[in-house]
């Protein structure tokens, strides 16, 4: 039985499931003695792009890194609280962090393609997880991932060139292609456009819109216009707390909290 057939079954199961894809309950993070995140609860759904906004050091990136346990790699970091993916506790002993990260992908602030060819960058995930049974299937995955990342037409003739030789915007889309090549359920994006110029930013934003619905997307941004453009849900963080969470339109037009209003209107930040 091929993986594809099995996967289709899984897909059907997944679509009838109406619960939120990821839930976070009362999450705290300490970096050494510093209490970086103070009791945050939030649901993430597949239909929506969720944006985390807030001033620097407010804990939004810290919170993002909880969803695929990247905080494990930081020496001295401690996470408390419950985070579930599809009803499974991601901190449970039977949860395999390797598998978790395959299901919850991540795109970083600075494009970080590996010093390998474009092809090898995208093939990296499927290779390590063994998702392709044959070379043909791997070619297929690489091509489709690059297509979905909107990069295929630009690189199809030079797949063997180094990924680091691309422009910054292309590199970031390559990283997105790399992340979605393992077909994750959630894609976490940590200020993915902060190192890019406006044109490259626009392309990435378009891409986010296209990916919505297939993957639950969480994006951290310090750019409020961007949050307004790409997201349906927005959470505002300040000093390690989540101040307000709601529909993006509501947060930007009619915030309930004074602190949110001050930030949105540019009083600080």
């Amino acid at each position, binding site marked *: 039985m091929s993986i594809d057939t099995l*996967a289709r079954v899984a897909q059907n199961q997944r679509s009838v499931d109406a619960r939120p894809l990821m839930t976070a309950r009362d999450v705290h993070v300490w970096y050494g003695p510093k209490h970086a995140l103070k009791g945050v609860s939030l649901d993430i759904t597949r239909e929506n792009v969720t944006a985390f906004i807030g001033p620097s050091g407010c804990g939004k990136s810290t919170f993002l890194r909880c969803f695929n346990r990247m905080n494990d790699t930081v020496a001295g970091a401690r996470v408390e609280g419950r985070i579930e993916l599809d009803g499974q506790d991601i901190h449970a002993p039977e949860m395999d962090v390797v598998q978790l990260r395959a299901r919850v992908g991540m795109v970083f602030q600075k494009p970080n393609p590996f010093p390998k060819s474009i092809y090898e960058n995208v093939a990296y995930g499927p290779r390590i997880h063994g998702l392709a049974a044959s070379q043909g299937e791997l070619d297929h995955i690489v091509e489709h991932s690059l297509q979905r990342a909107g990069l295929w037409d630009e690189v199809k003739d030079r797949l063997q060139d180094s990924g680091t030789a691309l422009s910054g915007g292309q590199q970031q889309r390559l990283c997105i292609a790399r992340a979605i090549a393992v077909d994750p359920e959630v894609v976490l994006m940590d200020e993915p456009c902060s190192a890019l110029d406006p044109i490259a930013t626009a392309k990435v934003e378009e891409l986010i819109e296209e990916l919505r619905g297939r993957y639950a997307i969480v994006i951290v941004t310090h750019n409020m216009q961007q949050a307004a453009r790409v997201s349906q849900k927005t959470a505002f963080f300040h000093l390690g707390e989540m101040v307000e969470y709601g529909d993006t339109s509501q947060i930007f037009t009619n915030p309930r909290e004074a602190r949110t209003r001050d930030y949105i209107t540019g009083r600080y930040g």
Partner: protein
Amino acid sequence: MTAVAAASRQPTDWGHPRLAQRLRRRHRSERLFRAIGLSALVVAVGFLALLLGTMLKDGVSGFVQTQARIDTTLDPATLELSADRSPEALASANYLAVYLRDVRESLGQDGVRIASINGWTELRRRVLEDPGLVGQRLTLWVPVRSEVDQYAKGRIDVGADPTLAPIRPEQVRAYARLEAEGRIRKAFNRTFLSAADSTSPESAGIRGAFVGSLLTILVTLALAFPVGVLAAIYLEEFAPKNRWTDLIEVSINNLAAVPSIIFGLLGLAVFLNTMGLPRSAPLVGGMTLALMTLPVIVIAARAAIKAVPPSIREAALGIGASRLQTVFQHVAPLALPGILTGTIIGVARALGETAPLLMVGMRAFIVDAPRGFTDPATVLPVQIFLWSDDVNRGFVEKTSAAILVLLAFLLAINAVAVYLRNRYERKW
């Protein structure tokens, strides 16, 4: 087209047995990799432990000396001493005659096969310390011969065929008798620390080599430190960026990696054969090692100077200090801890160096510590090399003991470097 392509791939079912099995395999290889890494480290550290363990096992007994007690009468007649009690006369008296007579008297006819022939020097030492001993009777502990010492320490197995053992049966018998009489003891080996080289292991010590090492390293330090620091200051603070400074840079980086024996060849060809400086002298050894240490100091000093932030320089220049004043009064003092650390590490390396010193002849057999920079001398590592080559098995423990001294010395020096680094190093 994109939409069609996208739809053709389906989400992954992570619960599928094939993937689950693959995951288990990946975790297994992760653990294996980790174990291999750890065992590599264990091998490296284990080797160090083995090396130190072997040296300790062989070397500790080198600090212990088996001694025999003799009663001696320092009568002027046998000493062939006239009324003259001047140091020269006392030094040239016939102690050997007294010694041989009293060894036979105290230890029996076989005594000379037990007590070291060099034991008479102990008599001379005592008399030179206190001339009033002449004519007196005194009890002395003198070292036993090397093979007896080794036998006493259990390092000689007489075995089935005593004629093949390095110790003769009559020596074994005499030793047993003397031990029963209480005339044998094991004491701390002062000779080892206070004497210079000797052909007989029981009289050999490391003081000569130690002093030679100190003199050599003093020359090295006096030459390499100032020149190295000045060169580093020039390269880091003043040198224009051109082909010449590039050449200097390449030279220094390369010299730091040139095999040490090449410096020995240079010393032999230039210092000895061209300049005609004395062979075997700490002066030449020190100069040779200075050339070798120089690049190490320059590289360390440059790194330390580079680490001083530009704001310090700007502040000093801003109040009207000249560039030289800025460098010598502000930058250099701040860089000093780093420079010193690098220097100490370079010097420690030079102290352990053997090959280049062999080239300039620092393998002199000397029975007295060198008194000056131009006296023939040897150094600790070369002494170790010379002893390791000696067929006399009494030198095995001496070699290991000398290694222990050298390692302890180097460890102490490095500890000073680490202390300096931790105490004074600043992160800017």
